[in-house]
């Protein structure tokens, strides 16, 4: 079985783009990816794609061309992009097709997501009484974590400050103005202990990736990147998840732990092999907890690591080098693929002012979302 290479990457800048639909942003990203791979749409043999709030990805064929290829719509919550990527990977790995595209895009209204209890298998009262908010879950999860492992609000602010600093070096990011730690700490509280600068917002954006069999990748690019590991997991018993009217008293691991283990096992690599990582930072507490859930440190070690600059672009393990969700926003369908896009840019050495030094060779992504799903990847040069 052939390995799988990423040979083309495309993005539509994240943020707010008036007058352009989510789907159009997806088409933009797809054209950028094709151009990057020096390829035409007719060369693409299959596609997977999706959005959570901006329509069906397969409608793109009206703009890209009616070539008759199988174009599968993917709808898998916050892991929509990750699921498209994994599906494209498996399709190539199986030998069914040689060249395909994974694309994700979205365009959300302003403000927090409004959730439909019945769509999540919950009763109406749960939403009516004001318990069904993702922001509450994030506040409560990090509140308990801080209590158990001695993480301070100062660390929450360091994560957000880093996000805006990194984004200021990223022309595709949404919030590109640095914000000081004091401003972050003293900003309006949204869901204690998280202030407004510690949260990401729903937004807009699109990413497309062209993938192919590794043994033909050099026909299209001099710098192919290889998808060495990719895995997706849903929640196990005892994990603390969003939209839970109740929880088991006996606590268990999160879906991230399983997805991460499976990804490293598939790649045959260890945490020490990773040169940089994009970790789901829906809010700054999530990035802190995900450092441990993905196995990059022990619970509680984050307090010292963050104060030592461990996860800054010039640190030992740079995390969220493009500004993450906090500074890019979270267009759900595109968010997981943005992480992969950033890793490709970094591994090509093309990240400009935010380039991780020392010729990084391996990069990790981790996406997490409702209702307790996680997908990870490892990409190498």
């Amino acid at each position, binding site marked *: 079985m052939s390995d799988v290479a990423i040979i083309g990457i495309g993005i539509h800048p994240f943020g707010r783009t008036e007058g352009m639909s989510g789907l159009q942003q997806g088409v933009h990203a797809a054209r950028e990816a094709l151009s990057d791979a020096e390829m035409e749409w007719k060369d693409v043999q299959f596609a997977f794609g999706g959005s959570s709030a901006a329509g069906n990805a397969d409608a793109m064929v009206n703009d890209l061309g009616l070539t008759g290829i199988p174009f599968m719509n993917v709808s898998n919550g916050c892991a929509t992009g990750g699921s498209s990527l994994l599906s494209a990977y498996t399709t190539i790995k199986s030998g069914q097709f040689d060249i395909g595209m994974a694309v994700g895009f979205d365009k959300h209204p302003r*403000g*927090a997501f*409004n*959730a*439909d*209890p019945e769509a999540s298998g919950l*009763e*109406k*009262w749960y*939403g*009516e*009484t*004001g*318990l*069904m*908010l993702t*922001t*509450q879950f994030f*506040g*409560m*999860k990090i*509140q*308990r974590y801080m*209590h158990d492992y001695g993480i301070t609000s100062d660390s929450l602010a360091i994560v957000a400050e880093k996000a805006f600093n990194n984004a200021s070096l990223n022309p595709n990011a949404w919030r590109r103005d640095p914000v000081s730690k004091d401003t972050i700490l003293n900003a*309006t*509280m*949204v*869901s*204690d*202990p*998280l202030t407004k600068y510690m949260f990401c917002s729903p937004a807009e954006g699109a990413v497309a990736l062209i993938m192919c069999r590794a043994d033909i990748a050099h026909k299209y690019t001099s710098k192919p990147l290889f998808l060495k590991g990719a895995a997706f997991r849903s929640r196990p018993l005892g994990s603390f998840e969003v939209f*839970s*009217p*109740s*929880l*088991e*008293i006996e606590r268990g691991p999160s879906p991230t732990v399983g997805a991460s283990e499976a990804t490293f096992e598939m790649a045959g690599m260890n945490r020490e092999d990773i040169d940089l990582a994009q970790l789901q930072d829906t809010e700054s507490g999530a990035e802190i907890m995900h450092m441990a859930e993905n196995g990059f440190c022990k619970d509680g070690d984050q307090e010292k690591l963050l104060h030592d600059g461990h996860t800054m672009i010039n640190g030992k393990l740079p995390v969220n080098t493009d500004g993450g969700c906090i500074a890019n926003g979270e267009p759900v369908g595109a968010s997981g693929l943005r992480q992969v896009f950033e890793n490709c840019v970094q591994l090509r050495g093309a990240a400009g002012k935010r380039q991780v030094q020392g010729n990084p060779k391996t990069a990790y992504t981790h996406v997490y979302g409702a209702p307790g799903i996680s997908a990870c990847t490892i990409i190498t040069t």
Partner: protein
Amino acid sequence: MSNQKPIADNLFTWPSDQPKLLGSRDTETGRYFFPAKRSNTHEQIELSTKGKLWTWTVQRFMPKTPYIGTDNPEDFEPYPVGYIELPGQIMVESRLVDVRAEDLKIGMEMELSIEPFVKNENGEELMIFSFKPSQDS
């Protein structure tokens, strides 16, 4: 009491002098569930009314639909929420009442309190469950 009714059926015993949350227990695995699951392997259980605060936050902005507490930002008051660990049973997510955010502490003793929430179109007062700091402590 006739103009008060629970916001949903099978959520807590009502009317009652000592209302209790209604959960269920899977007779095969022993696991507790809230809200109660309807299944022939589940038995309905009245959950403990007392427990410890496991974690908390404060809802500081007015939720969008399907929230029915108010749709007027001027009427909106931030409210704390948390998970209460009911010993030996389950942790239940709940609004917290009779306590200021600055006084909330993980581990504090809490007890069930059924509170009026909003009036429906028939003028009936919808009752919800919540937890407040335990009177004993």
